[in-house]
């Protein structure tokens, strides 16, 4: 039993270690600023500028969070505070269902619905021509994928706010919404931030669904109607070639390491926030 625990806790460390070790090749031959800020990606000439990929990842993830945060928050408030038990018992499983749909299926849905929608309806409305394989498509599909996670965590956090806080607020004469806005949300705030951060982390690393709709063009996108090339898509699309050239392989390991570190950072921040909330409302 002890060995099983040690084994499972060491996996993350093993992953980080292996990725770091494999990245050392490219880190010793290229400066960090060149890797992160240069736009020239020519593996054959030993040039690895990750900038377009980093920016592409940030665009898509940022858009996804911008789209999903408000609806998720509102929905979790509704589920935790306003919904009757019966309504909640129907809606909650539906949200869980949304969380369980495989990412390929999301990608397929986006390919069949969102991409044509953008190409044929949304873009002409704004006077832009586009293939539909855009940052916007990637952002929308990521937003739909991240929403269930954000909803379920923030809903738990909001429900965990002790009842006396709501009662005290209502005793002071506040309306339902005022109670929610000023008392409950304020108490649950760190937890809600943690939920958003965890969703962000998930959006960052999501590969297949985004890959199918985002265009995979290695240029810094100028608008949401341009294609982008997020880092996970970069790794997934080029894995076959990476084996043969050590520096190429090392570049991808570095990209994976970047992903891991960012997700790790988000995860730790979110964990700290959630522990803080649990400690505040600990019931022994």
């Amino acid at each position: 039993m002890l060995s099983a625990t040690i084994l499972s806790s060491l996996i993350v460390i093993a992953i980080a270690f292996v990725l770091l070790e494999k990245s050392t090749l490219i880190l010793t031959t290229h400066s960090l600023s060149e890797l992160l800020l240069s736009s020239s990606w020519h593996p054959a000439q030993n040039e690895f500028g990750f900038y377009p990929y980093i920016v592409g990842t940030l665009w898509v993830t940022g858009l996804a969070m911008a789209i999903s945060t408000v609806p998720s928050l509102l929905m979790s408030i509704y589920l935790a505070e306003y919904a009757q038990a019966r309504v909640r018992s129907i809606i909650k499983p539906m949200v869980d269902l949304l969380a369980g749909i495989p990412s390929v299926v999301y990608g397929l849905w986006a390919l069949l619905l969102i991409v044509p929608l953008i190409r044929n309806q949304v873009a002409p409305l704004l006077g832009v021509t586009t293939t539909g394989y855009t940052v916007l498509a990637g952002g929308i599909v990521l937003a739909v994928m991240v929403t269930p996670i954000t909803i379920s965590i923030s809903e738990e956090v909001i429900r965990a706010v002790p009842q006396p806080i709501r009662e005290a607020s209502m005793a002071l004469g506040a309306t339902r919404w005022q109670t929610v806005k000023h008392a409950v949300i304020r108490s649950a705030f760190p937890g809600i931030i943690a939920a958003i951060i965890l969703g962000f982390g998930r959006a960052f690393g999501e590969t297949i669904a985004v890959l199918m709709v985002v265009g995979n063009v290695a240029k810094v996108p100028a608008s949401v109607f341009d294609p982008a090339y997020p880092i996970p898509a970069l790794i997934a699309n080029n894995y076959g070639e990476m084996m043969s050239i050590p520096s190429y392989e090392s570049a991808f390991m570095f990209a994976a390491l970047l992903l891991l570190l960012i997700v790790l950072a988000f995860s730790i921040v979110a964990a700290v926030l959630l522990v803080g909330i649990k400690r505040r409302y600990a019931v022994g």
Partner: protein
Amino acid sequence: MILSVIVVLGSLVSVLVVILVRGAPALSVSMLTQSSTGGYYLGGAGGILNAIVGSAYLVCGATGIALVISLPTALYLNEYASRSRLASFARQSLDVLWSVPSIIYGVFGFTIMVYFGIRASLLGGILALAMLELPIMIRAMDEVMRMVPLKLKESSYALGATKLETALNVIVRQALPGVTMGVLLAVGRAIGDAASVLFTAGYTDSIPRSLFDPVASLPLAVFFQLATPFPEVQQRAYASGLILLVIVLSLSVASRILTRRAAAYAIK
């Protein structure tokens, strides 16, 4: 607020409807019962049985390994070392593992496989998926085992049971609904995950006959069929997506039913 509920639930319905409507026309019995033939991705005959069976093999193997590791870990975390530094370190590291993007499991698994000289195979895919399932299972089991009432455990000790006996007979039985749900949640995630098997499991037209044969998986079947320029094959991709969706949804329903059944052993 109601608007946001409508938008979120609407997108769920939209996903289900779109996949159903576009996938159903191309669905046929031969898709489910035949493996891919040589010209399948160019429009030839055959089906995706290789992918269905391959996914089944992958997930069974991965779940087996993950169960063997996760159940003792969860028991250990809850019974033997609940407050120790090892427990909090383990929980932290598993929390981080939970958020790790699945493509990193693929990259990591691939690197380990190259190091040991294993080619893209069933074994590689099983290892990558086991790593994916592990944090999901442990987290679910941990949550449920924490909620086992202290009095229950104390009664067991008072009757003279050892820690191990208590763990196996009392705690697991009480926590069985949550454990079942955790396992099926992990299985659902693993079946649909493409990024981790992309590098590690390979892809093939046949059903693997040993652990070292490459294996096809459903998500990759959808992905690769979609990538062809032939509309008939793309239609089949939609149908494969529908099959995958149906499998995951039935797993979800099955997990609810099984959880309720397992709750028969738990004391309220």
